[in-house]
């Protein structure tokens, strides 16, 4: 039983690391092979034919040859370079954030086709979204679905009763909501307004078209960002690095436009 020496796959490039003089190790997220690492030779030279097809945030058709340790990229053809994202500072940063999440939440060589679809769709839609923040929250919620951390937002995780339309708490360590009766004495949690709970439930159970129809104000947006950020950080047990950069940008761009 011998595997063919070369193979071809679609891939989104989600991470790159320098290697040696002119090489890189790329992290590719593929539809059927999951996350894989591969070596790209010579892509840091200006005349590299592959470099432009292997930049971060590019959807490409990649040919690979099996190597001893890492497979080697022998060809690549861009399918979508997401130029609209790359021409915009804020969109590039959002896109880097979601690829970092994908990288953090997945293990090598585990197929996750729905997650690939979600990532691709988000990258495609991001530039057309009215509210990028909501698009990020949508991505986070559906990412959690695909990697097995879907938060329970409909009933109290302690007493199993349906939630009343009052301020309930989201508790990261139990992965769900706690009603006011159960929340005392439980680990630290985020109190969520009725509207925030509604938006989260809606995002969790809808597709992308809903995101562009929703309108929320700045305060609600901040509330959602805080609770999702807290849950992600709890699950990863570390900071999401590019989230800090999003915060810096938000602060400074506001400073500059006013």
């Amino acid at each position, binding site marked *: 039983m011998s595997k063919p020496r070369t193979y071809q796959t679609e891939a989104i490039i989600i*991470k790159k690391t320098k290697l*040696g*003089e002119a090489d890189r190790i790329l992290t590719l997220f593929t539809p059927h092979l999951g996350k894989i690492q591969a070596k790209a030779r010579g892509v840091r030279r*200006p*005349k590299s*034919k592959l*470099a*432009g*097809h292997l*930049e*971060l*945030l590019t959807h490409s058709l990649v040919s690979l040859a099996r190597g001893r340790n890492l497979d080697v990229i022998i060809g690549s053809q*861009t399918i979508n*370079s997401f*130029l609209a994202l*790359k021409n*915009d*500072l804020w969109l*590039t*940063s959002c896109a*880097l*954030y979601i*690829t*970092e999440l994908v*990288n953090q939440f997945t293990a090598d060589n585990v197929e996750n086709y729905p997650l690939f679809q979600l990532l691709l769709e988000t990258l495609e839609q991001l530039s057309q979204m009215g509210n990028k923040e909501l698009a990020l929250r949508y991505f986070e919620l559906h990412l959690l679905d695909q990697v097995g951390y879907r938060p329970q937002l409909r009933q109290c995780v302690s007493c199993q009763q349906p939630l009343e339309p009052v301020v309930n708490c989201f508790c990261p360590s139990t992965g769900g909501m706690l009603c006011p009766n159960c929340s005392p004495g439980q680990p630290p949690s985020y109190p969520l307004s009725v509207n925030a709970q509604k938006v989260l439930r809606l995002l969790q159970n809808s597709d992308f078209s809903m995101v562009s129809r929703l309108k929320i104000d700045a305060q609600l947006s901040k509330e959602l960002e805080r609770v999702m950020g807290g849950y992600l950080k709890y699950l990863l047990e570390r900071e999401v*690095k*590019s989230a*800090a*950069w*999003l915060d*810096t*940008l938000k602060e*400074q*761009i506001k400073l*500059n436009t006013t």
Partner: protein
Amino acid sequence: MEQNPIPAAQAINRLIEELSKLPGIGPKSAQRLAFHLLRAPEEQSKLLAEAILSLKQKITLCSICFNVTESDPCPICRSDQRDRSQICIVEQPQDILALEHTGIYRGLYHVLHGAISPTEGVGSEDIRIRELLRRLEDGSVKEVILATNPNLEGEQTAMYLSRLISPLGIKVTRLARGLPFGTELEYADDITLTRAIEGRQEF
């Protein structure tokens, strides 16, 4: 890597160990270099050792542009032949070497020592952006040329800097992005081609 060092060859082992810390040099290459030096005239080893030592002792960063230099400020910042109204922003000192080699640019430089890379945790505070903004305060600079690398990090850094600098009333330009000389069109990627078409010039 656990080798039993032969007592007599300890000096060689030490050199091999040091050499293999260099980028691109594995244990075998290090061994080859070490034995080469052993056989070569003593003079050669002396020169090499001196060159390495003086590198660390003499080279500092220019306090104005953060280029590597033996004297502070660096020759470019001190020169009265250079156009002080232009600053060219680069990621690494090596980029200055490449640009100076062309001999076409007569302005000053500023080395950022990196590019913004959110997923690696490199933010605006980690590269020399604050120092750049301070240089722009006195109003003598009329044009800032963004010469960061044309990859995702470099582009992002350029877009960010443009957001910061444009409101100061300073002209911000970006190196043209298009096709490298000596290549073939059929292998060019979409982004490069798109920008090459957008940035075409009358011939």
